[in-house]
């Protein structure tokens, strides 16, 4: 399979070098790590927002570093959580004395490493708080799973907590905003193809020309169900119905939607899906306050999409509407 790589083991390293080369005035890499931080950070008087996780989800996470969003992002190897040591270095580098909020996606590795890093940073007298995003409705949250995965809803968490911190919110207030988004956001994804991790060099799973996977995550892992190929409208309907019924949105409520590309799907197809998503919401009397369409949380070169719905009130609307200036998200 053809890919633009050199030595696959340098994949993340070289990507990060390329990112800092593209945004030298915005991003700075902590020496000897895979952590990027704001070039102008730490920002005095502000709670720091940090995130991190495996690579392969670009522009997540480092693309969201900047004013109104993240202060730092740690990149692990492809689909692998960063180490606790690097997360700790990030927390320490970003803290401006007001505390640090870690936005963690609900995967065992991420949670374990962020927990350990928080303990390490607290030993250095840094206040650390955490929110764990678990918006994926494809996975049942029960004793028989590791809970729901954190997927594209994470972007809205980053945006809201980033805005709250920029507005001078305390660590507790910023954390509360994060929890509020998490309580109100749900996502479900599907794949037309698997993805190719650079080290393996071939597709993680085989999918026939006439088959799709429903309920996929963001790591090229198989989903919860394999079915026959569907039309864009059928896909939009399946994902939206599952998300809405889980979130229990009622007529008259306002929402933000994201039709997110998994990395290998053209924007035109995402718009086709979005068209149907908006039609479905309209039919139910649910009002879309803002509709995002694009590649926000990807899974390398996977073809497919996810649909995110987040219920919003005045507070969340203000925060999601607030100024933001990052490589991947601007006003």
């Amino acid at each position, binding site marked *: 399979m053809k890919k633009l790589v050199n030595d696959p083991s340098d994949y993340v390293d070289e990507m990060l070098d390329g990112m800092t080369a593209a945004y030298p005035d915005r991003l700075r890499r902590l020496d000897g790590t895979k952590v990027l931080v704001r070039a102008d950070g730490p920002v005095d008087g502000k709670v720091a927002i940090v995130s991190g996780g*495996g690579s392969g989800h670009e522009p997540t996470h480092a693309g969201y570093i900047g004013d109104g969003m993240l202060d730092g992002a740690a990149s692990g*190897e492809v689909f692998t959580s*960063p180490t*606790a040591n690097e997360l700790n270095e990030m927390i320490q580098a970003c803290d401006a004395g007001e505390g640090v909020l870690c936005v963690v996606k609900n995967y*065992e590795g991420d949670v374990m490493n962020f927990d350990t890093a928080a303990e390490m940073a607290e030993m250095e007298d840094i206040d650390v708080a955490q929110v764990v995003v678990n918006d994926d409705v494809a996975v049942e949250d029960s004793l028989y799973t590791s809970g729901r995965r954190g997927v594209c809803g994470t972007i809205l968490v980053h945006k809201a907590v980033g805005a709250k911190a920029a507005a001078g919110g305390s660590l507790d207030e910023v954390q509360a905003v994060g929890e509020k988004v998490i309580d109100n956001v749900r996502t479900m994804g599907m794949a037309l193809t698997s993805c190719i991790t650079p080290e393996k060099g071939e597709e*993680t*799973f085989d999918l026939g020309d006439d088959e799709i996977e429903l309920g996929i*995550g963001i790591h090229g892992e*198989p989903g*919860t169900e394999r079915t026959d190929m569907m039309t864009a409208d059928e896909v939009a309907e399946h994902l939206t119905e599952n998300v809405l019924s889980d979130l229990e949105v009622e007529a008259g409520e306002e929402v933000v939607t994201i039709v997110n590309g998994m990395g290998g799907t053209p924007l035109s197809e995402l718009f086709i899906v979005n068209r149907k998503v908006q039609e479905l919401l309209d039919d139910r009397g649910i009002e879309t306050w803002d509709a995002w369409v694009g590649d926000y949380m990807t899974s390398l070169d996977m073809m497919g999409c996810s649909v995110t719905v987040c219920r919003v009130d005045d507070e969340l609307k203000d925060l999601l509407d607030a100024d933001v200036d990052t490589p991947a998200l601007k006003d």
Partner: protein
Amino acid sequence: MADESVQREALIAAIENVAARIEAEKSTLTDLDSAIGDADHGNNMHRGFEAVVEKVDEFEEMSPADIVKTVGTTIIGNVGGASGPLYGGSLMSASQELEDGITAETSIAFAEAYLEKVKDRGDAHLGAKTMVDALTPAVHTYKKSIEHDDLPPLTAFAKAVDAAERGVEFTVPIRAAKGRASFLGWRSVGHQDPGATSTLFIMQEILKTAEEYLDGETDAEAVAESVPDEDPEEAK
């Protein structure tokens, strides 16, 4: 076991054997992980043990406990994911049990501490289709063989490896309740757990090394008879 210098030499040999085995099985582990996870277990374990092997020169000056601790911290520092804390963090904590050197007694304490740490960090129980399913029968068998059956540690460890192998087989027909495989729900049934598998590979290499360094033969017949033919679930 023999004096500290021999223990150190055996430990270093075991580490090198484990690293070589992980490298050789890199794609086996990644393929297992592709089926029910995210296709990185082989590469992650390899990256960790590659970094460990680079530190072998430093091990020449260390006590066995410090060597094991350093293997743990090196894995923590280089692997990430869940494997970093589970394999590395548990080795680091359990290494305390080896402070008086490696004996039958301290090795049991080490094995128990390691299993407890893995269960604790991973919040995993037996039957969740994880490395715990390979470790639990191995640790129980090892302890019982020494404490109740008075078998020599090498024979006990051979039985433990045999038990771990059955644990790995047990992961195939059960549904995952922990880790990324749990996201697949019923689709995880029929696949072998990569973490249980790498755990078995590590134990097999430790056994192979121990056979070279420890006096006395493994009692092959005792090993074959040791593990009862029961369903691990029923045995609870």
